[in-house]
């Protein structure tokens, strides 16, 4: 039972970051730099929390950092019409470099009081559930959600009927990055309560893979995140057992992520397209 609680705490990382990426992708923009956003936000949150001695301050700083990186990605891929992949890769590599250099003096445990949890279950988990349902509702039942989905399907048509694709995408990217930032902050100041250069450990990338394999549906993302969260902590606990091949076990989450992408691609090969049709394609409103 303890595993399940721990798993739910871990899944929160994927839920929140994945939702952020999902929302951005629904509007047609992919952010492969999500790992970099989480790293930067995580570091910012850590510094904020450590300096102020307060986890809430840290979270606010992390969220702001995430939003800022989102603004950068939006500016590059929308206003400058650059390749979304290139922009994302740039943000990721910048994130790695920036945090490994500027974070080195902060390496270590968090010196601030922890956030209280309910029966060991972090309150952010409940926040995660709430926003899953919020986005599911927003995307399917509101006019705004319809506009977002339209922008991700056929942006030219969406603009033709008066819904500014540029505005929609900016909003979705920034909101998405805010969530990714929140997830990164959660990792450093609540979940692990430490900072080190590789603390995100690929969980941003895993969240990205989960968006694909949950077919861009928030409810499904909840399911895949929970599974991945439980897997993640099971792997770590199993490592404690004597004789456990630790490194081989650590491969499991990444292997499962690969398998989930394969599963998604196989589903797609059957002809069912769930991917927003315009995902990743640059949009030129002047045409």
């Amino acid at each position, binding site marked *: 039972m303890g595993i399940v609680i721990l798993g739910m705490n871990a899944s929160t990382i994927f839920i929140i970051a994945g939702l952020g990426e999902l929302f951005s992708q629904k509007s047609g923009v992919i952010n492969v730099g999500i790992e970099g956003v989480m790293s930067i936000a995580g570091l910012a949150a850590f510094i904020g929390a450590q300096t102020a001695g307060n986890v809430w301050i840290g979270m606010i700083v992390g969220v702001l950092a995430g939003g800022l990186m989102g603004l950068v990605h939006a500016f590059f891929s929308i206003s400058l019409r650059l390749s979304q992949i290139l922009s994302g890769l740039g943000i990721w590599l910048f994130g790695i470099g920036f945090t490994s250099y500027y974070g080195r003096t902060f390496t270590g445990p968090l010196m601030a009081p922890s956030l209280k949890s309910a029966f060991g279950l972090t309150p952010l988990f409940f926040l995660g559930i709430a926003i899953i349902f919020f986005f599911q509702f927003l995307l399917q*039942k509101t*006019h705004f959600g*319809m*506009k977002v989905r*339209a922008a991700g399907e*056929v942006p030219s048509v*969406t603009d*033709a*009927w008066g*819904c500014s694709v540029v505005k929609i995408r900016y909003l979705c990217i920034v909101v998405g990055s805010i969530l990714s930032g929140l997830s990164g902050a959660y990792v450093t100041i609540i979940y692990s309560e430490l900072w080190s250069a590789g603390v995100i450990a690929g969980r941003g990338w895993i969240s990205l893979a989960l968006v694909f394999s949950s077919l861009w549906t928030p409810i499904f993302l909840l399911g895949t995140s929970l599974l991945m969260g439980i897997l993640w902590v099971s792997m770590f606990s199993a490592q404690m057992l004597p004789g456990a091949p630790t490194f081989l076990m650590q491969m499991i989450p990444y292997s499962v992520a690969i398998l989930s992408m394969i599963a998604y691609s196989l589903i797609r090969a059957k002809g069912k397209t769930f991917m927003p049709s315009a995902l990743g394609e640059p949009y030129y409103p002047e045409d």
Partner: protein
Amino acid sequence: MNEHHQKNKIRELKKGEIAIELRGITKRYPGGVLANDGINLEIRAGEIHGLLGENGAGKTTLMRILVGEVRPDKGEIYIGGEKVDIRSPHHARNMSIGMVHQQRKLIPKFSAIENILLGDPATSIFPNIEKSKKKVRELSEKFDFNVDLDAKLWQLDAGEAQIVEILKVLYSGATIIIMDEPTAGLSPVQQDKLLASLKKMARESLAIVPFVTHKLPIVTEVCDRITVLRNGKLINTSDSISELSKEELADWMVGKKVLFDLKKPETELGPVLIEVENLSALNDQGEPAVKNVSFSIQEGEILGIAGVAGNGQDELAEVLTGLRKPTEGRIIFRGEDITHASIRRRRELGMAYRSADVLERGVIGDFSILENFVLSSLYTQDFCRGMLIDVECARGIAEKEFTNFEIRAPNIFTTVKNLSGGNLSKLILALEFSWSSKFLIDQLVTQGLDVATTEYIRKRLFEAKKCWKAIMLFSKDLDEILMMSDKIAPIYEGELGKPIPSERTNKREIGAAIIGK
């Protein structure tokens, strides 16, 4: 200027009163083209006012001005007697001007009702789908439209998709409806239904402005008045349609005799080059698109496949060229069974293909003209023997064809995406003719091109025929097919009729066959 005020004013107009007035509309595009030259036009309430003209006559520009996509350089627009400045499509919509586009502006994955509601300013944050559906159904019944509102757009055919867009425009309260080529892509049955609905719509004091290229019979059947544009100028507006003869209309539109005088050369035919037996294939939605098609073509022969778009032509061409897998049947090309052969093998054997989607599949826009020549001859041994590319040889051939086809561009190193539309079409033809191909499949021979380029392309096709190439043409222009082909076969819903020599048939017969009679 209050837009609500506008809307109401229009509704108050009585039939016959002037709803829209365009005075002196002039628009010149950067590059010098004078698209609209001082056009004065009035559209009355309750009428269906057809706008005719060839491609390039200026109807598209005029329509885009009215709908807010383009701003005129000079001139004024009056709606309901008041001067307006239409700044954007959104703005136009607020003034109850709506447009139904030829290329549907709809989202395939959305349902019909979602498409109708998208971007509608009156729709609330939490749309009440059921209520909206009811309102749409009321509109549908009023005008005899019949479409499943919950169906996804990709499930609907061309006619139904157009209905969705019409409903979208009606739902947003448009009273002035502009329609771009409303009958394009529709079967004759659908066309009749649409025209009947249009008449009903006009009775509701709406003004309808269909823009048509040359579907004269439709125009005369449905329009109260028509206006003809040519080269940016308004030629004539006629009130008494019934008195006009087709010839008069055609004269107005083209200004000179339509070219029907290119003579097809008489060629001795060679052995059978390609033989197709019982070929069947599915389309992208998994439905049968090619049904049991059989035919053969000899060297030096031109086979024309006549049909309205969407009856399996694309899929048939794709199966022949290897872009699509057949479910049944055989294709024998130059003695070899190529039914499941790779695209490369077919090209090696001499099969060339000029497809409808030019820039996507025909050329690589970022490459130079020379590089595109290399691309089309990659496997045809012309200058690519073994592993290496003989660049000198390639240049020679490219230069030769560049001159032959009179492509207007600086040189063979020009990037292809900078070429104009007409030159691009010529280039694509050149590319597929430049190598030693034996068989050319040509879709959409000359649609949308200016007269000079069209004539040139037809001339080159006849020359190829004389050199014993076999050609397969796809066209919905019956005059063109009759003029160009040795044998004609109609295609309807994936089934190919028996090919008949063109001298033994006529337009009426083929016209009937392609609509299924």
